[in-house]
């Protein structure tokens, strides 16, 4: 009964090894000179930041948000609004503003949704995200259903994000910083308390923790980090549209976290890369006997997630975990 919940946050040595290898691979990757794949990896890293931000809620605090894309998309829009039509904005200004905007909206929405539990939390986070989605979708002034273009990518301190290679390493540094931040947070007094809230919220309150404030802080922080990812997404694609806040985006992040294994940040990271790799693989499937396998990638992806949940409830990460002595 306790096993699936216990010690999600402890990483076996094999995972540390895998992550170190992964980091080396990411550092070296652009030197392969494959521009298409370098961009694909940039996109994976951005989604990994997004998935890790969700894991703070889903895996660490036990709050499954089905509206996390709202804070992702919002930051992209903030960048679009702040970007002049024919000149580069400074990322030194637009990045903090975009993150703050996402954090602020997460704080306000969190104030309402964090009071609810379980299925109600899932529903209200989704409802708020849909409200934001339609706010942007229906307002021509906010870009409407067509979205907005970021004509010139931001630049500052000699780092011009218009340069694909600069953007790649900028994203990689962000990824590493977010990972280190969340891993440290996991073992901090705040992180231990979030863990306690996931396991037994009532008891944490009895011990003297104002669990509402803890959950609201986690929700706001997760929103801010999702904003960082959304900003980078806007920079990379040079384009934002309401779909970035949409249901699919939120659901994909949940699947990434589940695929990798939740509650330890590393799982979300691995899950995001895994998800994107599988996505790429499924979309490239050939047409067999008049049936386009690749077009129906969602069918294969869905089956894969179901399989992972059944075979490896702790995700791909769980497969690397030695069985604990208590089991």
């Amino acid at each position: 009964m306790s096993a699936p919940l216990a010690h999600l946050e402890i990483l076996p040595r094999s995972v540390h090894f895998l992550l170190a290898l992964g980091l080396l691979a990411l550092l070296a990757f652009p030197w392969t000179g494959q521009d298409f794949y370098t961009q694909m990896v940039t996109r994976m890293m951005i989604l990994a930041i997004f998935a890790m931000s969700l894991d703070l809620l889903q895996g660490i605090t036990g709050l499954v948000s089905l509206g996390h894309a709202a804070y992702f998309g919002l930051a992209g829009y903030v960048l679009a609004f702040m970007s002049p039509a024919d000149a580069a904005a400074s990322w030194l200004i637009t990045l903090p503003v975009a993150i703050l905007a996402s954090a602020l909206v997460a704080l306000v929405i969190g104030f309402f949704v964090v009071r609810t539990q379980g299925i109600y939390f899932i529903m209200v986070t989704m409802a708020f995200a849909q409200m934001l989605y339609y706010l942007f979708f229906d307002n021509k002034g906010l870009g409407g259903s067509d979205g907005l273009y970021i004509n010139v990518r931001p630049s500052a301190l000699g780092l011009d994000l218009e340069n694909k290679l600069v953007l790649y390493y900028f994203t990689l540094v962000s990824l590493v910083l977010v990972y280190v931040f969340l891993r440290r947070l996991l073992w901090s007094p705040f992180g231990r308390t979030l863990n306690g809230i996931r396991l037994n919220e009532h008891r944490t309150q009895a011990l003297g923790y104002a669990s509402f404030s803890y959950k609201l802080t986690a929700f706001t922080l997760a929103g801010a980090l999702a904003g960082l990812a959304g900003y980078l997404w806007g920079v990379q694609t040079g384009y934002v549209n309401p779909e970035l806040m949409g249901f699919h985006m939120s659901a994909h992040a949940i699947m990434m976290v589940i695929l990798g294994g939740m509650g330890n940040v590393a799982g979300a990271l691995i899950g995001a890369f895994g998800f994107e790799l599988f996505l790429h693989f499924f979309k490239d499937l050939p047409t067999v006997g008049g049936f386009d396998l690749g077009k129906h990638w969602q069918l294969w992806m869905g089956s894969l997630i179901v399989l992972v949940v059944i075979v490896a409830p702790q995700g791909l990460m769980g497969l690397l975990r030695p069985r604990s002595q208590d089991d």
Partner: protein
Amino acid sequence: MTKPTAHDSSARPLLQADKLSKRFGGLLAVNDVSLSLFKDQLHAVIGPNGAGKTTLTHLLSGDIAASSGRLQLKGQDVTGWPHHRLSLHGLGRSYQKTNVFLPLSVWDNLMLAAQAQGAYAPFNPLSWFGRADHNPSVVARADRALQLAGLSAVRNKTAAILSHGIQRQLEIAMVLATEPQVLLLDEPLAGMGAAEAETMVGLLQTLKKDHAMLLVEHDMDAVFALADILTVMVNGTVIASGTPQAIREDAKVQAAYLGEASA
């Protein structure tokens, strides 16, 4: 051991309830209950099932809000304070149904409890950095609770695999790790075997010396061995309150409660 038969009226109670009531729809679960808890004194509340003892504990700990009445903690009016705030101000409680972090080790349970006191606010970035287990005062509090409750031997065991009796001890150790001055214990002996119960009574005996304690308990042997003051509740109402000796001899109590129980 000397038991005070009547309390020095000049001493200030650590916890004082004035006419607390709780109404659940048409049911008056707790009706105008007043009681005071003093340092170094164990105040036991007994009564048949459904008498409102657990509800009373919930009212005192802030788990649920009273419909009417007042609550004072260390002379401060704390009526309507939420649970966690009372806990930070020195009021600790254990639960009738074991309520620990089952997937965590005994030590991690105690660390989480000990860390609540003096913690940075969650929105203070200082609480996001630094390892929780590197705070010497937190470690000291957790260690003290571990020793007091006699759990050193199971320090690194997962709570879920412990026996019921040890889980009950952990339940109390967690309260101790928050260093409360007032202890509310709801049936700490529930479901325990004779040997386990004996250990627990010994622990409660020790704790009595430093705390103002409220004990809700069905085990009459334990109650009469520990209590300095007894309050008897029936149907949400206090029918008698006094020294164990006085309660034993109270005709109303004998009729309503002890008669059935000892028959």
